[in-house]
């Protein structure tokens, strides 16, 4: 079973507050995870990634946390800005293959 799940289809957050986007995966062979942001009518753009040998990776306002025992990762955006309003996709590279599996996406709306 090779699934990446984003159970929250949408999220609204006030500007300046923290946005937390969640992702669960089912296969312990997944060992590299990526987050992408997508605006309407544009291709996804890479945000941040994390390898399974780490539990945290930080890049500016974006931090990804990985909990391998729970097969869960989360993306934290602090502080949230209106320009962060987009659809966020969680993805995993399947170890030993060329495949990337994507979640269904979470639409984030940051309210000014």
């Amino acid at each position, binding site marked *: 079973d090779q699934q990446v799940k984003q159970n929250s289809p949408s999220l609204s957050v006030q500007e300046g507050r923290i946005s937390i986007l969640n992702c669960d995966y089912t296969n312990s062979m997944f060992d590299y995870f990526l987050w992408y942001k997508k605006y309407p009518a544009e291709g996804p753009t890479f945000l941040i990634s994390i390898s399974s040998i780490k539990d945290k990776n930080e890049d500016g306002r974006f931090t990804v946390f990985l909990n391998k025992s729970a097969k869960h990762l989360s993306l934290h955006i602090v502080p949230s800005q209106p320009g962060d309003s987009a659809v966020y996709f969680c993805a995993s590279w399947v170890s030993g293959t060329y*495949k990337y599996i994507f979640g269904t996406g979470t639409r984030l709306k940051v309210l000014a």
Partner: protein
Amino acid sequence: DVKVTQSSRYLVKRTGEKVFLECVQDMDHENMFWYRQDPGLGLRLIYFSYDVKMKEKGDIPEGYSVSREKKERFSLILESASTNQTSMYLCASTQTAGPANTGELFFGEGSRLTVL
């Protein structure tokens, strides 16, 4: 900067027509991918290619074929378009799958196909 260019941003085709979606990348990447994005379904892999003339089926290859005659170009072909193939099609490339080279996928801007 890496650039992945998809030839058509918007297309409208009739049922039964043959459709070609072209994708070109300028970073000499070995691996190229075609995804489709549909609301509530996320990005689903149609086909990928890890070398010239090499291709493998993704999760939803039915109704599609691909061609990779040159390293920089990866084409998606709908032999006989159907209304359920109305979607956003996204091409992507990467040098090395996985963490050896960040494993980042670079995407094109997408091709919105409507089949009437």
